[in-house]
């Protein structure tokens, strides 16, 4: 029997050769680091101390016992939850406002303007809002004073709860267009004859919304909420620029907390232990939401 030539072999294994480079890259830069960090989280990994003594669950215990760590999970939940909810409501409102008024002059320009924040680095968005909110430089307090008729003197970046509001405003500014774009695609896919039939039957605007629009775009709503929520819990950049986690540790998100113990205090083993806890929490969310949601949307 003749041995297969290289080209025959590569043709037979074509599909595996195509996936091999990408899979190897992900294994090398994602799976291997994760396993490595699992090992780090069970030893004492310190640049100053030679050798890596096995310490069991000590690193995990230290993170769980740290009140700042627990507070950072609360901060992550508050900030990501309220931002995503607001973005959803505002994005839906924008999509409804622009979907049904299908044609008017300048619509294209408005659409292009609305999506602009999606293409800006979160660091720049943070910087932009720092310029708006910082006392005494930013014009926000001045604008509010003019609108409300009394003197507003809020330290947006250093005073609770205003620092939370500042972070939410910046996040909403950047990511509402994300909801808008996906929900608008959902709205455009509702067949127009459904609305025409409803109008003929004299169905009111609210009923049309609840009984026709919502059920039609429900899968898109879930998809937009899931994707956005999974990104929102990673929250780091805007905090880094706007509040620096402050005042004190008041606005530490989970990512920001792990960053500080890993890269400013160099408690590397604690940081990897903490990031594994955070990873497991995220994976639970992913398994629950993504698997369930994407199957119908993809199929």
């Amino acid at each position: 029997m003749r041995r297969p030539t290289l080209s025959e072999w590569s043709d037979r294994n074509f599909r595996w050769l195509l996936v091999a480079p990408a899979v190897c890259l992900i294994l090398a830069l994602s799976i291997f680091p994760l396993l490595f960090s699992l090992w780090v989280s069970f030893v004492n990994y310190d640049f100053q101390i030679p050798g890596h003594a096995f310490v069991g669950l000590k690193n995990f215990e230290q993170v769980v016992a740290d009140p700042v760590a627990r507070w950072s999970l609360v901060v992550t939940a508050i900030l990501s939850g309220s931002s995503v909810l607001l973005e959803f409501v505002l994005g839906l409102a924008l999509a409804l406002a622009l979907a049904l008024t299908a044609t008017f002059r300048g619509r294209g320009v408005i659409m292009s303007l609305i999506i602009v924040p999606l293409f800006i680095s979160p660091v720049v968005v943070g910087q932009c809002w720092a310029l708006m909110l910082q006392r005494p430089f930013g014009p926000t307090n001045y604008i509010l004073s003019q609108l409300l008729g009394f003197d507003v003197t809020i330290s947006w970046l250093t005073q609770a709860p205003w620092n939370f509001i500042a972070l939410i405003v910046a996040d909403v500014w950047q990511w509402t267009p994300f909801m808008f774009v996906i929900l608008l695609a959902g709205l455009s896919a509702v067949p127009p004859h459904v609305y025409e039939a409803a109008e003929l039957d004299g169905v009111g605007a609210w009923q049309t919304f609840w009984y026709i629009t919502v059920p039609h775009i429900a899968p898109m709503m879930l998809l937009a909420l899931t994707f956005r929520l999974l990104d929102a819990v990673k929250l780091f950049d805007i905090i880094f620029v706007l509040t620096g986690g402050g005042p004190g540790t008041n606005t530490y998100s989970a990512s920001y907390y792990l960053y500080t113990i890993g890269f400013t205090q160099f408690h590397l083993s604690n940081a990897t232990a903490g990031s594994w806890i955070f990873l497991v929490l995220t994976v639970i969310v992913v398994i629950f939401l993504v698997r369930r949601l994407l199957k119908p949307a993809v199929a």
Partner: protein
Amino acid sequence: MAVARRRRPLRPATVARIAFVGFWLLFLLIPLYWMFITSIKPSSDYLAVPPIWFPDEPTLLHYTAALYAYRGLDGLINSLIIATSATILSAFFGTLMAYSLARFNTGGQHLSFWVLSQRFLPPIAVVLPIFLIYRVLRLNDTHAGLIIAYTVFTLPVSVWMMFAYFRQMPGSLEEAALVDGCTRWQSFWRVAVPLAVPGIVAAAVFAFIACWTEFFFALILTSRNAFTLPTVFRAFLGFQGALYGEASALAIVSLVPSIALGILVQKHLVRGLTLGAVRG
């Protein structure tokens, strides 16, 4: 001549819509306008009350300071090198894998969902060990190190966008090429890839924007040598008091290219944001 259109009186719902869109545009544009104005405003105008919405003597001094004194230009060049290289690698490997997934269902749903799940990994969980591994490999603060990291971190987007693209592309032409005696490689390179160029370009632009705007990996994996444009902003955080103009100028330099690219591919935006799960 134009036919005169009858104007119906505006309904309350229409008024509400216009008002809401108008409010949103103000909320959107005021911060951007303020940042732009700050970038050309002389420092002496910073603290004026009421705020100065247009300076009498605009200046470009902040731009030169941000680009040269604060090494913004070096960051810009690094960002260009790193984002371009990572984009090319990601689009290349992503297209290969996507083709296999779309045409041969390689690895079934498990493989494609495994790739997708990478998109939702918290970066902090990966970047800490990568930092430690790069330390051993001497890849910290090198262009190559960040290029590899960005290639991997944009792969899920490239794979899934191209996966969706190949699936809605009919496979009959490639089959015809096979019947005519082409090998699988030839039918891929000569038939499928040229047909998929619009999809590849769109996926590549999204990957580029993701690399261009990325901060977290760059913050941790680079310092004095391979730092990218977003990390230059660290210089303005400590003593913002004096550096409003420089920070704004650098922000403008950073956002103009990615917004321009984004507007160019906006018709692919829905696919880009949902990784191909929704067709725009």
